[in-house]
């Protein structure tokens, strides 16, 4: 509270003016783009759109809903991965950059399992059974990876400054990437062909959703629901939240703090495993570097939602995924940005910068006062 009061009383510096300028500029650009886009939907020759980009096209409902569904299914996976960043941050206060690789392990082991099942004929005869087995294997492998890294790499560093486990996690991430390249060979590996009903569109209300995207949304939704139940409604979850807030007092309650930290890594790893196999189903292939970009974006999603806040991680993931998918057409094209469809990744990080400029604690973040973090 005292810092908040002090920062209000502090005279505004050049940097403050610059940040305010950035906030206004970014908000203005987003609003202009959106307005031009909306107007264009009504009147293709509207002066706002043609002023900057006379070539801008109207977006059909079909194309629009396709972008929304792609954005949400991609965002759901970011959300699942973001949960792991957020939970570990909540409990140990550092960013586990190896979490993207935990996700990659899920995608990789999912690829191995589903190819084996494909060879055995199960993939085509009984897809639901096959995918259930593949999800289980991915979840187990990712969970084990997360727990083992905690035990070997992070636990010995407990109590050292937060920068040290953070840098260690970058090392762990290289280690896992290279282990995968050594064991399985470098380069892209394919998932088996999905059954036809997953490649067709399924109509739900005004939406035509590709089967695999629906599968991704359903599995991600169920996993998030299960996680919410675990954290908010069970004794284990209560212990996790208590440890996140105050380890010393948690141990005074009789909670085994080390075991609770392991549980946190395990649950985060399981969610990354689910995301890994869903990624494989959606994009059909995986490399040892698959964890990198989704990992960084999921981390951004966790920050956008307010790091340490689980609902925020999910919301951040969905926000980031949909912005990535929609913003090129809705905001960038009317602004006349060339090559806007190639700018997905830039959009994700612009969203991060925008949120940090406007609400530094993230969408659902609470102010972490010194007292709270004691």
């Amino acid at each position, binding site marked *: 509270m005292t810092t908040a009061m002090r920062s209000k009383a502090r005279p505004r510096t050049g940097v403050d003016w610059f940040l305010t300028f950035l906030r206004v500029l970014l908000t203005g650009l987003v609003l202009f783009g959106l307005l031009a886009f909306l107007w264009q939907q009504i009147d293709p020759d509207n002066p706002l759109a043609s002023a900057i980009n006379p070539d801008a096209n109207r977006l059909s409902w079909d194309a629009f809903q396709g972008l929304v569904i792609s954005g949400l299914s991609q965002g759901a996976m970011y959300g699942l991965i973001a949960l792991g960043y957020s939970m570990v941050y909540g409990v140990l206060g550092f960013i586990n950059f190896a979490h993207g690789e935990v996700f990659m392990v899920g995608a990789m082991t999912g690829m191995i399992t589903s190819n084996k099942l494909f060879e055995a004929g199960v993939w085509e005869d009984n897809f639901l059974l096959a995918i259930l087995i593949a999800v289980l294997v991915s979840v187990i492998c990712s969970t084990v990876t997360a727990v083992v890294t905690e035990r070997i790499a992070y636990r010995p560093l407990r109590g050292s400054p937060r920068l040290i486990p953070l840098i260690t996690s970058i090392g762990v991430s290289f280690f896992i990437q290279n282990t995968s390249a050594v064991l399985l060979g470098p380069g892209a590996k394919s998932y088996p062909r999905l059954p036809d009903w997953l490649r067709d569109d399924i109509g739900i209300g005004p939406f035509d959703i590709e089967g695999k995207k629906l599968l991704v949304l359903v599995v991600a939704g169920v996993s998030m629901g299960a996680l919410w139940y675990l954290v908010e409604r069970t004794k284990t979850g209560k212990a996790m939240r208590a440890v996140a807030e*105050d380890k010393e007092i948690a141990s005074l309650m009789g909670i*085994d703090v080390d075991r609770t930290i392991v549980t946190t890594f395990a649950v985060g790893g399981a969610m990354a495993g689910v995301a890994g196999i869903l990624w494989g189903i959606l994009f059909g292939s995986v490399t040892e570097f698959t964890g990198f970009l989704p990992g960084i974006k999921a981390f951004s999603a966790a920050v956008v939602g307010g790091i340490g806040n689980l609902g925020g991680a999910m919301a951040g993931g969905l926000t980031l995924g949909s912005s990535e998918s929609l913003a090129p057409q809705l905001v960038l094209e009317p602004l006349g940005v060339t090559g806007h469809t190639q700018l997905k990744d830039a959009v994700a990080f612009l969203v991060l910068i925008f949120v940090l400029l406007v609400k530094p604690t993230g969408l659902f973040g609470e102010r972490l006062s010194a007292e709270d973090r004691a």
Partner: protein
Amino acid sequence: MSEAVASPTPLLEFRGINTHYGAVHILKDVDLAIYPGELVCLLGGNASGKSTTLKTLLGMVTPTTGEVVLDGEVVNDKPTSYRVERGVTMVPENRRLFKRLTVKENLELGAYLRNDDGVESDLERIYEMFPRVKERLNQKSGTLSGGEQQMVAVGRALMANPRVLLMDEPSMGLAPALVQTNFELIQQIHEEGVAIFMVEQNANMALSIADRGWVLQTGRVVLDDSAEALLANPELRASYLGDGNR
């Protein structure tokens, strides 16, 4: 050591305890004994090692030499949970509620290690003791006033069904009007048969309800006597009781 109380085995005991933080020597050859059902207090100035004493009793800090004894058993290498299960709990300094958890969740965490079926009725007992708490069960505990937080902190400790309650400066940060109520509450808990080991700066108040007390000075026990004797001690009057009203 005065063997004023008849009961043969102390509930909790320090035998020649030394505690260090890194290279810094905090507790120096401390001997203490708390008997079942007693109300005792530990006095001492700032940074004299009072909180460290409580944390060492609970195993949140490990002593370098000496023995922590619970019911006659040396528990140095047993975790905190072992001691909590056997009836030792604490209301920590500054209460330290889980601020982002609800009042109900805080109380339930107090009973984390229990799986007997007395938990529900103990919750009811806490609600009876603190009707204010019952009205705020689903509120985040960080939003409570200082007095209400104190009630939840005491309630949370009682939910462990303790035989001895360690209290670290229970009147610190309370409005002056609440300090008296708080001491009455401590006496009430004591009358229900729970031993109390209280750390206080408010020496007058503490000694007026305690049976015995110790005075700690830079980690060493310098006085160990009955409450009446301590109240009458000229040295103590000069150093603590004189400004005990601040």
